[in-house]
């Protein structure tokens, strides 16, 4: 066992400090590349990446390798062989270490490559990677994203016995997370699928009301959600609930012209109607 020699402690502290500074400095080098990637400056990011000095330790090298994989994914032309190359890089990162942020990010990115980059989407592979992300760490940023991506696949793409089974699969994903934004987005997805699959409007209304409790939506999505709740409330014969959400629309999005229909209803004027078939079979 190590003795608590003051000189040894000091040496350890200094060593740790220098190590941290070294990693931090290395990371600083990569930040410029990440910033360029974050603003779609693909070519510039590649040039900057190539000009960076070689990392001086394994941790920094790992960061650099991950950065290089993402920058490579961002280059044109995007061929299958380039995707193979990126996947090999990500697999290597996973093989060397499977329990850190980069490992989960690699799993997530491989899921995205399989789902949206490949000429022929590989949906089973995508769902496999997303599930692996959740199994590895179900609460990091990548898990939050993977959970939502998996939900979309379960609602529309992966085989299911029935419409209800699709909804149930996403309900299970909601139960597995405490993150409010993820929960909100999953409730919104269920509401949308409920309307797409001809479920009675009560289903979509219930999930949108739950999503609304989490809040945080802005812009068009926020305005759309208020309108959707207002209209679903009309379809479920809850005019007071509808009025409440339309008044919120007026208050929060005063330039949204969709408030007009509410004013017409309030004034007892006829307004265009939805087909009754949309309210479920």
């Amino acid at each position, binding site marked *: 066992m190590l003795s608590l020699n003051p000189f040894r402690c000091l040496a350890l502290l200094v060593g740790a400090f220098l190590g941290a500074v070294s990693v931090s400095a290395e*990371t600083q080098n*990569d*930040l410029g590349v*990440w*910033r360029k*990637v*974050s*603003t*779609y*400056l*693909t070519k510039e990011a590649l040039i900057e990446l190539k000009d960076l000095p070689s990392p001086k330790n394994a941790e920094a090298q790992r960061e650099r390798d991950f*950065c290089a994989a*993402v*920058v490579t*994914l*961002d280059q044109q032309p995007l061929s299958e062989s380039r995707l193979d190359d990126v996947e090999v890089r990500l697999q290597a990162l996973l093989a060397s270490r499977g329990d850190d942020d980069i490992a989960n*990010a690699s799993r997530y990115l491989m899921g*995205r490559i399989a789902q*949206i980059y490949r000429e022929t989407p590989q949906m089973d592979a995508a769902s496999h990677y997303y599930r692996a992300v959740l199994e590895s760490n179900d609460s990091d*940023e990548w898990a939050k*994203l993977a959970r*939502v*991506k998996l*939900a*979309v*696949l379960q*609602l*529309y*793409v992966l085989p299911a016995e029935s*419409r209800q089974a699709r909804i149930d699969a996403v309900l299970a994903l909601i139960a597995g997370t405490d993150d409010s*934004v993820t929960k*909100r*987005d999953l409730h*919104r*997805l269920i509401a*949308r699928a409920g*309307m*797409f*699959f*001809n479920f009675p409007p009560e289903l*979509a209304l219930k999930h949108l009301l739950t999503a609304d409790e989490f809040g*945080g939506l*802005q*812009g068009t*999505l926020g305005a*759309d959600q208020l*309108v*959707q709740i*207002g*209209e679903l409330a009309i*379809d479920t014969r809850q005019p007071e609930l509808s009025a409440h959400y339309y008044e919120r629309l007026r208050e929060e999005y005063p*330039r*949204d*012209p969709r408030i*007009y229909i509410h004013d017409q209803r309030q004034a007892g004027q006829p307004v*265009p*109607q*939805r*087909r009754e078939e*949309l309210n479920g079979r």
Partner: protein
Amino acid sequence: MAAKKPRFNLAIVVLLGAYFTAAFVVLTRPGAALSNDGRPVIRIAHWQIEAGPREALDAMIARYEELNPDVRVEQVAVPGNLYKQWLRTQLIGGSAPDIIEFGSFWGGVDDIPPRFFDPISRFVEEPNPYNDGTSLEGMKWRDTFRDGLNTPDAYIENLSNYYAVTLCMTSMRVFYNPSLLKEISGSETLPDTYREMRALGGTLREYNQTHDTKITLYAGSKFTGDALMLERMSSYGGLGLSFANDRFREQGMRKRDGALEYIRGHWNFEHPDMQASFILMREMAGQLRPGYQQMERDAAIQEFLRRESLMILAGTWDATSLRSLSPFELEVTVFPWPTQTDGQLTSHYWGPVSEGAGTTNAAFYLNKAGQHKEHALDFMRFMTGLEGNTIFAQTSGWLPSVRDVEVPDYAQSYLPRFEGYSVRTSYMRGFGSETREVWSRHMHHLTSSNGGVEPFLEAFHQEFPDALLRDLTKDLRDVYLSIRRDLPPLTALTVLDRLEGLDSNRHRSRLRRESNQAITEAKLYEAEFLMQHGPAMDEME
């Protein structure tokens, strides 16, 4: 051969001499790039070559230089049909002006803002010093705009930043000739209902017969014809149909939803609302001169100014040109689109129709490679300050983008009408280029004198469903590209939060984009699901 050589050399010398003399004059004239008066020169580029904006910019520049005698500002006006190519060349060559008008609606230019323009988010969150001492003093710069800069060209969602400030607002209006109207109908005022407008068409026909004239009700060109019929008569007439199929409870079908509901078998062009709209469109086409679809917009303006038509539907961006070129006093009003009370064939026209949320236009960006960015930003503040924007509005005759800028009496009618139903489905032009092409190719079956609704639909139906599928396929391919394009930046933002520590604005913006993308992907797979299953999906357990 040898004897001709000296003459050739002389010609070269003369040409070079002329070239260098011209270059010297151009480059050293006051305010030019090589001007030696020592003042920084700010250049502002735009494509608004209509009458009004150039004069307004000159007036703004004159006032700005009065306030800032150490700076010189020049405007560079480039015609719209050349502008996009010209701008890209200038940007790549590093010789682009300091302030640049730009529009994402051109398509295929999404790379330009992050590559060549500076974000101005931190500046628009601060007050505009040119508003000191005015009603807008102390207000955040972005809040001083009528739409809070809430327009896709000012705030670029994918880049999570404000990039531009806007100069004006626009709308579509009908400009008419009151004296000619009085001569024909006995009234100087244009009807304010569509029922009366149709009656006016009848009166005009009689007038033409009795006076042996060929005056049209509407000035005709492809632009005005499309604006009247394709963009409005059909879309407004289909508003009820759009609401009927409002599956996602957003007050009408959006573009792709409309295509999917068609594939699902929930609407088609045989629907009575569409049939009635076609009859009205055919009627309307009879009020434009024959061959209007082959005419450019300028031809319609000429027709109107020559008193060969009673009115023209035009954007308010043409208002100053029309006023300055017109040999007669003209009047402007909102076109009386059909409503349910306008009699035969109009019972499905829900009205009034909203002209939108009143967003502002003409977005100006700050060139990242500009030599005098501080001065350029300062001029952007001035032109969108209360005084600068007032000068712009008063001189150009265009609507201002800035709050509290007085709208002249004559321009009050240009202000977009907010109240009314939102039209979200464009049946004729909205689904994509393939279906649009089918419309264009078969439109003459509907509008020609020996055509009609039936021959049109017969020809149209043979091609529309396949064209719709091609449009949808292309649309989905674009969605895939867009999602792919966003993955590396979104990944980078997540990594930056880990490496740099959480930046709350960046984090919030990323989450917003991720939430948007979740719905975008849901819509993508809804479309693929429907393309696979078709109407049978409504029978699924």
